[in-house]
């Protein structure tokens, strides 16, 4: 226990721990705001608006929408969310089963590795013009998000399957489990913490991809498009407001993933990955 300003902190008290966390987080954000403010004033450039200007632009965007295009902030967010969630869902659907199979069957791994190693280093955004031209402007950005999330997720799932304690497989087999039962009842549950880790990493990368991909697909009218539009027109506070919205969306998705992770880990009874 320690005493700060006459207040006694007890680390075994959940409320105390939460309060401590919040105080530190708020302090961090306040420091960040001051740093931003300082830089904005020192740089004295229109391209770096102050937090207050950004806040006003944000409030304005939320209340009035985009007065030029006549679209509301929710249209922009909705469009981006649609692309983001589609790409994310697709990545889950493909990377998890594929990762489990690659991790489990040596032949599949040997077959898939060369192709994966060729494709992995390519920046997801490099695909944007290709996909958008070759397919179309709705599916293209979805595929960019998909690729961004796919590789880190796949790597984590494969790793999770390989990290499995082989004793558990032996135990299952001597208890009469068939290969497919070993797969569903041992491999998958023990890979869950690793899968969730990959999901969390992928969610962040997904946001990076979407903003970039939307630059190539103005027809979609996502938040990345709005950002680019405002920046090009020199409406810097509005551009910063778009960045703030992306940051909040990113925080929300990773926060949600964190909650799901905790629930799942609790359910499968593992302390950590």
């Amino acid at each position: 226990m320690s005493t700060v300003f006459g207040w006694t902190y007890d680390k075994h008290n959940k409320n105390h721990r939460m309060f401590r966390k919040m105080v530190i987080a708020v302090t961090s954000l306040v420091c960040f705001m001051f740093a931003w403010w300082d830089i904005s004033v020192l740089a004295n450039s229109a391209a770096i608006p102050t937090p207050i200007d950004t806040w006003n632009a944000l409030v304005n965007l939320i209340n009035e929408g985009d007065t030029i295009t006549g679209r509301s902030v929710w249209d922009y967010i909705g469009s981006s969310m649609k692309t983001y969630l589609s790409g994310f869902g697709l990545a889950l659907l493909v990377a998890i089963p594929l990762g489990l199979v690659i991790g489990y069957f040596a032949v599949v791994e040997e077959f898939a590795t060369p192709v994966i190693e060729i494709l992995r280093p390519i920046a997801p955004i490099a695909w944007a013009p290709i996909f958008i031209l070759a397919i179309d402007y709705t599916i293209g950005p979805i595929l960019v998000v998909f690729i961004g999330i796919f590789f880190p997720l796949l790597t984590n799932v494969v790793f999770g399957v390989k990290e499995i304690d082989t004793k558990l497989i032996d135990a299952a087999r001597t208890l009469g489990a068939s290969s497919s039962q070993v797969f569903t009842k041992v491999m998958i549950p023990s890979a869950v913490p690793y899968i969730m880790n990959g999901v969390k990493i992928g969610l962040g990368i997904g946001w990076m991809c979407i903003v970039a991909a939307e630059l190539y697909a103005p027809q979609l009218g996502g938040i990345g498009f709005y950002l680019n539009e405002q920046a090009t027109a020199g409406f810097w506070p509005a551009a910063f407001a778009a960045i703030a919205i992306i940051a909040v969306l990113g925080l929300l998705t990773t926060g949600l993933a964190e909650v799901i992770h905790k629930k799942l880990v609790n359910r499968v009874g593992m302390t950590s990955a």
Partner: protein
Amino acid sequence: MPEDNNNRIEEGSVFLEIDHLRKVYITDESQTVAIEDLTLDIKKGELISIVGPSGCGKTTILRMIAGLLEPTSGTITIGGKECSEPGSDRGMVFQDFALFPWRTVRKNVEFGMEVAGVPKEERRERAEKYIELVGLKDFADSRVHELSGGMKQRVGIARAFVNHPDVILMDEPFGALDAQTRNLMQAQLVRILEKTEQTIIFITHSVEEAVFLSDRVVILTKRPATIKEVIDIPWPRPRDRAGPEFVALRKRILEELEKENVMNG
């Protein structure tokens, strides 16, 4: 006891035959002969211990019986059927427990029945009985990581026994436990054996444990392992660890092992 696989074979008759077993581990750099010409018959309902110098090949033998490892030559058969694949007729108890951490105690014990497609009700009932038998009734719905080492191994024992396999293979099952817990576990295993007549092959580093539990003790030579001597222990259980017979036999086995270790250099 529900329908028991073992009932087909008469108590005391030979049913697990290890015949001229040999195992060579081949790696890129070297060949290790782990087992050399090992022949042994195991009788229905007996507890047979295997003791031998460290690294002589005890685990190798057990894994081959389990079907987790293929013999280089020779055969292992149960009731005439070769043990080439793992199966629920040969249960295993591991030194480091190997429990499924995402399952509760009950769900761990039910695993074998679950994969065999035993109906839920029956599964529950049978698991309940064995959880009670190993004294974990109050922990049936606990997570594995909430249990002590001794409790974990009792789950491991219940999980193997509940399936009534022809034989249970135990590889230093109490090796990870402290001395006191170990003695308690041995006593509990003796009590369980009174009720189940389960055939057990038991590997241990502790000669005292072997003499306390076994109907027979197999002493292996240093690697490559083969049988040095088989000792019958026809005494009733539970046994008195301090009794003169017990102490004398323990000393004799220790001396035999000592000789192997000396030759090991």
